[in-house]
């Protein structure tokens, strides 16, 4: 007999066995379908404290679940599953498994701050979303994706030179993701650029790829940015009780 309620149960909570024998009785087939209990068996007070320790998350404990944040949310209007109110609750009770189910959604917050202006308790939900994203990353719940590698290459160049150079970004990104530079579409693109662009512009682009020009006087800005980023990373890791990055790691970052 089919279980009608199956549609109400998440697929990962249904366990079925092709062949199963219990106490000598064959219960193969649909008889061997089990549902994992949905009971919350404990709270984890550490989760809220960790998120509260990250910048933006300080006021998460003020939340009384009115739903103003979700109601005003830009992203929620497009994706009804994007629910800051709910994530704040999960974080507060330490229901990490449930929170991690949405780890690919949480970072989609666009920081429009509509929630910040509608929150009656000054929870600063936008800050909490930011803290939650950092928490996911620091806890290692977000494996490095190609888009993340692109972001790192992009921001790395900005930090270093104060500007970006498309050709270098593409090369760096391909290198990070282990892709071959000589891809048909890219070769074709370069060929057409050479044919179509003015010679002077082509030369500027070529030189820029070789000499890596910097914004004038960028040095102090670079140092300040790098110092801030390193400081922030250290502080966040410390807040979560993670090992501080070793000296070697810091050096390789610079």
């Amino acid at each position, binding site marked *: 007999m089919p279980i009608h309620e199956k549609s109400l149960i998440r697929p990962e909570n249904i366990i079925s066995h092709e062949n199963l024998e219990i106490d000598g009785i064959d219960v193969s087939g649909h008889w061997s379908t089990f549902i994992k209990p949905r009971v919350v068996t404990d709270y984890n*007070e550490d989760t809220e404290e960790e998120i509260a320790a990250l910048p933006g998350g300080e006021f998460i*404990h003020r939340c*009384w*679940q009115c739903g103003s944040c979700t109601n005003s949310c830009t992203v929620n209007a497009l994706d009804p599953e994007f629910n800051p109110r709910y994530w704040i609750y*999960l974080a507060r009770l330490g229901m990490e498994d449930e929170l991690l189910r949405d780890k690919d959604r949480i970072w989609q917050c666009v920081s429009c701050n509509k929630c910040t202006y509608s929150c009656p308790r000054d929870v600063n939900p936008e800050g909490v979303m930011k803290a939650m994203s950092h928490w996911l990353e620091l806890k290692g719940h977000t494996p490095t994706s190609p888009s993340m590698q692109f972001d790192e290459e992009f921001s790395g160049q900005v930090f270093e030179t104060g500007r970006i150079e498309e050709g270098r970004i593409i090369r760096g990104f391909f290198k990070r993701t282990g892709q071959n530079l000589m891809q048909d579409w890219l070769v074709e693109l370069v060929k057409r650029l050479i044919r179509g662009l003015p010679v002077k512009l082509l030369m500027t682009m070529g030189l820029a790829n070789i000499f890596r020009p910097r914004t004038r006087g960028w040095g102090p800005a670079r140092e300040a940015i790098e110092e801030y980023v390193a400081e922030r990373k250290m502080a966040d890791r410390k807040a979560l009780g993670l090992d501080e990055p070793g000296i070697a790691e810091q050096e390789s970052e610079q």
Partner: protein
Amino acid sequence: MSKPVLVIGGGPAGLAAAHALASVGRNVTLIEKEDRLGGAPILSGYAKLVPSGEWAKDAIGGMVGRVEGNGLVDVRLNTTVKAFDGTPGAFSAILSDESKIDAGAAVLCTGFTHFDPVNKPEWGFGTFQDVVTTTQVEQMISSGNGVRCPSDGRKPKRVAILLCVGSRDRQIGREWCSKVCCTVSSNLGMEIREELPDTHVYIYYMDIRTFGLYEDLYYWRSQEEFKIKYIKSRIAKVTSDGERLIVKGEDTLVKRPISIPFDLVVHAIGMDPNVDNLLLSSVFDVELEGHQFLKRASTYDSMAGTSRPGVFVAGAATGPETIDDSIAQGQAAAMAVLSILSQAAAE
């Protein structure tokens, strides 16, 4: 010399009424069935009061002192009223010690009775030692012993406070809100966190009714400064795994069953009508209202009145009431007594 005014009950309302009448020169006979004055805050050993934050023994103790030290107030402890007859200005009462006194009027300040949570056996009171009432936690704090698990004296790591125990529950015939328990519980939660900063306090609620200024001073403050967590759930059952208590219910926000271990479970017990209300109703010939509290006459017409002219009522005798409002009502009843006595004297 004018006949004394009979004030029944020596709690906040009775103490306020007696003091108010004595301070305008009236004789008062204050009847108290227990062996000391002060009412629930003193008899039940409350800790710090809402909203003053003063210790009950200081705040209410001060009210007791000024009444006991007043020559116009005749305090009769361990005494009840057996019979009461007459008309406004000319009542007579027979007390339990068989003495007879004349009275111009009477004010019933007979208060309430704490709900006994053994009447909600599914929540474990009387079954598990570490299930206690808000009153017991008040006593743990006011005694200076601190909040501990009664079973072995350990400091609780996690405390659950269940609201609406004996309130808002048709199953046990208590359909009223006891009005003060939300605020009292958030106050207790803060006191627990103050004493035991590593203890996590969870409050399970159906609605939070920290009315008026208690909203930010208690509800918000308990969340924002003391990190108390409020969870919307009416608990189904309190049981034990042999080591800790297990609180079972549904977390209505995640729509999932919960089964959470706790060290200490506190019942925020409500206010029942005084167990003596049927007796009081018959002795003083006053009506009870639908929940068995004393019935109040129309407030617009006759402040602090009952169904019987010349007999007044104040405080939690008429329904769940805060201490401050009970005191105000005691004073209001005194004013009503004065006006009826001056009328009687003029006639």
